[in-house]
């Protein structure tokens, strides 16, 4: 693999790893506080899967980079501007409906992504995808089913998820952005074409929104910047909490 391609793949793996880690963190904030016991268990389970994906992806990113950074070095010793996650996943939990909308928009993307990444010409990435795809298929069913229940539930629940959908929709455009580095990876058959994924994502999302009796928001101005390290104010607090111990005791092994 050429150095440029390797750099591009490092950036790609880092972005996927960061996105999984940050969303896993957000979901884990629910642990013990969900609307019912079954949901406590389910959200924790999804969080576990996501942190698991992050570990594989960050480990691989570290290997590609070749500077000796492992999963923990990458997770715990980077500041906001070096994080590459989508802005969508760092949005705070607000309420259960907001969490479900955020999760569904992400899950619908990740299932399309990992299904395609199983065929990646990069064996490691294909292997990670083969494991992750089984889990994200379950995730999208879980979040999609809840979105339908809440959208087509009571007036209160409908209003809450409709509001969340309006708030979060502007963060969906970023998932399908494509820069030069990614274009090279697409050309090399290593990652799928985001434009083609967007059509599949849209069809999947529209079907569920229809069952949920929710209107798809118009594609207006989209918030972007996560993949360049330009984040919302929320990420700093998340990292401050997550990184506290390794930062406070830099010489310690845990």
């Amino acid at each position, binding site marked *: 693999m050429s150095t440029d391609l390797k750099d591009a793949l490092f950036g790609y793996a880092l972005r996927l790893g960061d996105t999984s880690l940050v969303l896993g963190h957000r979901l*884990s904030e629910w*642990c013990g*506080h969900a609307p019912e*016991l*079954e*949901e406590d268990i389910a959200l924790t*389970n999804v969080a576990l899967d996501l*942190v698991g994906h992050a570990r594989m992806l960050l480990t691989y990113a570290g290997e590609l980079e070749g500077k000796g950074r492992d999963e923990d070095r990458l997770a715990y010793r980077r500041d906001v501007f070096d994080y590459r996650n989508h802005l969508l996943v760092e949005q705070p939990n607000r309420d259960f409906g907001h969490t479900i909308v955020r999760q569904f928009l992400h899950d619908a993307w990740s299932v399309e992504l990992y299904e395609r990444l199983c065929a990646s010409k990069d064996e490691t990435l294909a292997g990670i995808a083969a494991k992750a795809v089984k889990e994200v298929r379950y995730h999208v069913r879980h979040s999609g089913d809840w979105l339908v229940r809440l959208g087509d539930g009571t007036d209160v629940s409908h209003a809450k998820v409709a509001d969340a959908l309006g708030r979060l929709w502007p963060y969906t455009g970023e998932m399908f952005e494509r820069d030069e580095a990614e274009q090279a990876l697409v050309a090399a058959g290593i990652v799928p074409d985001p434009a083609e994924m967007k059509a599949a994502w849209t069809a999947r999302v529209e079907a569920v929104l229809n069952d949920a009796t929710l209107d798809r928001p118009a594609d207006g101005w989209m918030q972007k910047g996560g993949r360049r390290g330009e984040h919302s104010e929320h990420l700093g607090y998340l990292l401050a909490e997550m990184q506290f111990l390794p930062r406070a005791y830099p010489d*310690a092994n845990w």
Partner: protein
Amino acid sequence: MYTQGLDAKTEQSAQPSPRLVTEQEAALQGRFQERVDAEEKIEPRDWMPEGYRRTLVRQISQHAHSEIVGMLPEGNWITRAPTLRRKVALLAKVQDEGGHGLYLYSAAETLGVSRDELVGQLLSGKAKYSSIFNYPTPTWADIGAIGWLVDGAAIMNQVPLCRCSYGPYARAMVRICREESFHQRQGYELMLALAQGTAEQKRMAQDALNRWWWPSLMMFGPSDDQSAHSAQNMAWKIKRFSNDELRQRFVDATVPQAEFLGLTIPDPELRFNAETGHYEFGAIDWTEFNEILKGNGPCNRERIEARRKAWDDGAWVREAAVAHAAKRKQRAMKKAG
């Protein structure tokens, strides 16, 4: 994890008032006791004395509540776990506890109470849960100490429950015990990493042991002479060993583990008696235990408030799920009819 320690004498747990027992009832009771004595499992549809049913509902639901409330002190560190491996392990552990709560509520439901009713009792403050969860987890070492000591004490209590006379409870306990012993090893391994780490980490580990040691001993409940239900529960084979016996086993197993870690158990009276082969330990401060039972522990209020908030904040979600299920049913009926 589990407690018992909930069988202190209280008004609620007073023995049922004596009443006339019919001949038929006496025969049923005799037959029931024979089955228990023969180590047969009692199943939900079998006849059982009302006191047996009541005791089990109380014990199993307290155990379930303890699992659910127990998710809070440990959940407190999920977002701050210092490595991704530790984060995953802690998430999985807290999730297991939710799972234990779920099977235990199901086991209690076989005795004719609903989960909602039991949860209602927890939220209203009527039902108890293990006092151990009313202590805070201010440092990361608390996660290790809970796994090592609290789950360790729980296992001592729970392994005999796998042979409890009531079938659904015994079977739930088999699975729970397997998971708990895994948690206990994980907790100990976490403590080992701290004990072998920097001076600051070692200090953190010692501090956690100092705070969790005595509360862990209290988890076994009052001394045998103060325990309200022991004799009857032993005859019913709900309980197999007395509180003091189990406490002694825990001390005997744990002291060498602390020595291996290079940590000091905060009990100046602790010594090994070569004649008995057991460790002797200092007197437990039951005043503290009783105050926490009364609601005066450092976190009693926070714990229940957190459970109530989760329940109240989730009301609209549960209502939506019910409303949606009704709509679907209606649509399906329309389609069919």
